[in-house]
């Protein structure tokens, strides 16, 4: 399978990439790790006239602590995030989830920025970033702006990013002392989630729960969070995991099956998060 003819531009800085996006407008697509974009281009479900390769922008590849957040450059690859010492210590949920994405080859190429910007409800990292209440930083022609994760995912393959913007950084609040849990249900170990649940445990606030593949966009399990805040046990709260969701209905996994999975996996993820957190849920 061969992608449609394209014109290739290589950016060596964010400014240069922004200039290329401004020049080519809607005809251009950013290429990060290419592990969502290339498969689509090979099927010709995507056929951008211009591909702007941001894969060499070293200024977007870092993980560092800045006060009470860990700042992750958008071009950080899944493997590098998973094995990063700072990320593993300070934002263990995000570091762990990065290591559960696809298979090793995919993790050597795919980036956190691409994973979030693609807006795929079946992707794992959005749920983690939502549960952590991360802030996403985008740069566009008018400068930088911050977007709370809760406002970033707009719908199926749609995000708050404009076509002339680049996601540059993900700012995740440090959570070294909070428990966490991630449950991903797959048929084979390295597959995409049929359903996934990411939990950041309590203290100082209530646990936060993000869901993978339970709707048009990555979402929070707000009904579970409300039940916990009202004093429900984790097992009771997990019963609400599918409330207000609209999971995909597919031959290999019906919507009803996914709703069931969401409750079971939420209970497990909440339990794990409680076990890992000295303060408890």
């Amino acid at each position, binding site marked *: *399978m*061969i*992608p*449609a*003819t*394209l*014109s*290739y531009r*290589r950016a060596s800085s964010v400014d240069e990439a922004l200039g290329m996006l401004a020049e080519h407008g809607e005809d251009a697509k950013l*290429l990060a790790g*290419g*592990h969502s974009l*290339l*498969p689509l*281009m*090979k099927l010709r479900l995507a056929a951008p006239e211009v*591909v702007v*390769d941001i*894969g060499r922008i070293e200024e977007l590849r870092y993980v560092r602590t800045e006060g009470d957040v860990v700042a992750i450059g958008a071009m950080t690859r899944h*493997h590098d995030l998973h094995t990063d010492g700072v990320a593993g210590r300070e934002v263990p949920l995000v570091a762990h989830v990065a290591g559960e994405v*696809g*298979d*090793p*080859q*995919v993790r*050597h*190429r795919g980036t956190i920025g691409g994973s979030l910007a693609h807006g795929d409800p079946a992707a794992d990292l959005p749920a983690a970033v939502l549960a952590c209440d991360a802030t996403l930083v985008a740069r566009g022609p008018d400068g930088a702006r911050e977007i709370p994760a809760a406002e970033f995912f707009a719908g199926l393959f749609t995000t708050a990013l404009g076509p002339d913007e680049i996601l540059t950084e993900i700012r995740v609040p440090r959570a070294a002392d909070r428990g966490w849990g991630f449950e991903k249900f797959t048929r084979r*170990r*390295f597959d995409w989630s049929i359903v996934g649940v990411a939990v950041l445990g309590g203290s100082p606030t209530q646990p936060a729960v993000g869901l993978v593949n339970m709707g048009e966009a990555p979402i929070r399990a707000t009904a579970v969070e409300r039940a916990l805040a009202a004093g429900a046990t984790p097992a009771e709260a997990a019963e609400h995991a599918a409330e207000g969701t609209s999971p995909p209905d597919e031959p290999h996994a019906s919507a009803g099956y996914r709703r069931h999975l969401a409750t079971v996996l939420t209970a497990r993820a909440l339990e794990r998060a409680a076990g890992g957190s000295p303060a408890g849920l």
Partner: protein
Amino acid sequence: MEERRVNVTVNGEPKVADVEPRMLLAHFLREVLGLTGTHIGCDTTNCGACTVNFDGKPIKSCTMFAVQADGHEVETVEGISRASELHAVQEGFKEEHGLQCGFCTSGMMMTAKALLEENPNPTEEDVRWALSGNLCRCTGYQNIVKSVLWAAEKMRSEAAVRR
């Protein structure tokens, strides 16, 4: 038609070619350089038959443009033996019957080689996890895992002799 010059070090040798930007690395290796040891199985990023080591790390060459490899190092199955001497991983697949049709084998070996360079003493679980992006339709994996553990053992004993 737009063409771009790519400079890639393949198996230690610098290679230069002008290619269409849409050309995939797998096609570049097979069709431009004639290195047909890298196989294309699924063409959908699932099977790992096209795995090559890119700056030392296994990647699927069907899911990367050749232009993205410009200035980088690629190692293919053709590059892992020394003259007539097989690499320990190749020997392992021979000794432990790690292949049947052989279609997945080059990808398996490239992933295994990268694993052993990073972790000379892997457990069976480590090997299985490292190979999780490589599918085999024939063997049932048992002998592939044994082959990699055989190679690990051989490489460790060789390293011990050298020390």
